[in-house]
């Protein structure tokens, strides 16, 4: 087989509950800020929602996009295009043949607002009032299609869907596109816009959301003994991935490398993680092997840790299972404590955090951990960032999704 290229990260973009771009989001994360806040109280009054808060996006897309863009894109695509534009500009708007440029930007759920607004229009006004853009806006490939259209990405535009693992799986697929020779540059990431009463009611019905209504900023608390569920977030993270040769040839700045991708499925339950963590362990082991690193090289893990009773500990034990005694020198960060859970956007945003942690040599904090769970078997970064060592280092970003999807990415320093 011909030479398999290394895949480097040359551009970052995001719009999140912590900020409208990567710089403000990362600064807020290092400062330990929370993006959770109370939402429209009429939702609670009208529908009886038991949860009154979420990690809503910090910068309204209406402040950033034009009216036609707002009208023809679902919020999930709006967030994606905002993040993609930032990532592309950050990468220096690489000159690349469109047939060598790919797009893999996914949402875990799709154009939820468009679906529900369209249904309201149909019921209230009838078919004659239905806008023709409704289906192009609601389809889950809409974000990646808009990215493909905007940047002329013709090597392929893909939308991997795996619930809360979506953003990481998209990046993994993009890595494969470059390694297999299908593309030199890929715009990849995840997005989600589901802070709407319907999914909130459904998540609440499954008893997975935190009910800490009197303290939204303190609600997402992975690994704290009093954690009581996740905080729904929204937003997007997008990276520009590039073959190392392509990046070097144009003198691009390189943040780091996506060195390994590991994928598995639990085949166990539609929402619950498999208790032994066997599927998570297989994904992490595959990613470490794919990266060609050893557990001793791993200094940091950005945990999936959503702040649920069961899930957080299974993951911590899985990390210990993969790294063994080398887990002793790993700094664990659970950034959903600050951002909430961006579902399809989470894996991409947390990959960005992982890349920046290695690049800036500091692991971001996990906030709200007043009393660490005594069963936690790893060194959790609490309250303040902690330094990562010099030299060549690597980290794991975990993302797990409803349905039993496990994605582990190994990120290596530049």
């Amino acid at each position, binding site marked *: 087989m011909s030479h398999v290229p290394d895949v480097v990260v040359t551009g970052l973009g995001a719009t999140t509950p912590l900020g409208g771009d990567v710089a403000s989001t990362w600064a807020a994360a290092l400062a330990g800020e929370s993006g959770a806040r109370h939402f429209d109280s009429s939702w609670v009054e009208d529908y009886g929602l038991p949860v009154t808060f979420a990690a809503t996006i910090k910068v309204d897309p209406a402040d950033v996009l*034009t*009216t*036609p*863009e707002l009208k023809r894109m679902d919020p999930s695509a709006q967030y994606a295009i905002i993040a993609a534009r930032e990532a592309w500009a950050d990468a220096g708007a690489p000159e690349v043949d469109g047939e060598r440029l790919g797009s893999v930007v996914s949402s875990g759920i799709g154009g939820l607002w468009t679906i529900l607004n369209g249904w309201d229009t149909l019921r209230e006004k009838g078919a*004659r*009032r239905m*806008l*023709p*853009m409704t289906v*192009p806006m609601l389809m889950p490939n809409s974000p990646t299609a808009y990215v493909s259209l905007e940047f002329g990405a013709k090597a392929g535009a893909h939308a991997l869907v795996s619930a809360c693992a979506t953003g990481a799986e998209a990046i993994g697929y993009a890595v494969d596109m470059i390694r297999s020779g299908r593309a030199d540059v890929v715009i990849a990431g995840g997005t989600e816009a589901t802070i709407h009463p319907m999914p909130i009611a459904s998540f609440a019905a499954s008893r997975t959301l935190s009910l800490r209504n009197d303290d939204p900023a303190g609600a997402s608390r992975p690994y704290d003994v009093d954690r009581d569920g996740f905080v729904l977030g929204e937003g997007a993270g997008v990276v520009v991935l590039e073959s190392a040769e392509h990046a070097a040839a144009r003198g691009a700045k390189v943040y780091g490398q996506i060195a390994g991708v590991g994928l598995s499925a639990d085949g166990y339950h539609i929402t619950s993680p498999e208790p032994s963590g066997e599927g998570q362990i297989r994904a992490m082991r595959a990613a470490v092997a794919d990266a060609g690193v050893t557990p001793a090289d791993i200094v940091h893990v950005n945990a999936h840790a959503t702040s649920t009773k069961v899930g957080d500990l299974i993951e911590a034990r899985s990390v210990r299972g993969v790294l063994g005694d080398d887990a002793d020198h790993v700094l664990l960060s659970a950034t959903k404590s600050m951002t909430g859970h961006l579902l399809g956007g989470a894996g991409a945003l947390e990959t960005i955090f992982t890349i920046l942690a290695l690049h800036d040599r500091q692991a971001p904090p996990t906030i709200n951990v007043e009393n660490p769970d005594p069963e936690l078997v790893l060194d959790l970064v609490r309250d303040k960032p902690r330094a990562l060592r010099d030299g060549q280092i690597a980290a794991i970003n975990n993302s797990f999704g409803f349905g039993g999807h496990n994605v582990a990415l190994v990120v290596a320093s530049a």
Partner: protein
Amino acid sequence: MAYSEQEILAGLAEIVSEETGLPADSVLPEKSFTDDLDIDSLSMMTIVTLAEEKFDVRIPDDEVKNLTTVSDAVSFIAGAQS
């Protein structure tokens, strides 16, 4: 209440502006939807749907192809008002 042609032009210009991003004052009566305003068929059907609701008229599909210019649309809507 019937809208005047001037009111219809202003309302239509607003719809076209929101759909295309063009300034409303550039949506002049003599402008062609396709040649001057670069409106494709999907956008045209969006504009038709929004105009039907705004002016409470029906613009049959067979009629849309005859609406070459903004003026054509204004005249049709004015005549279609009950």
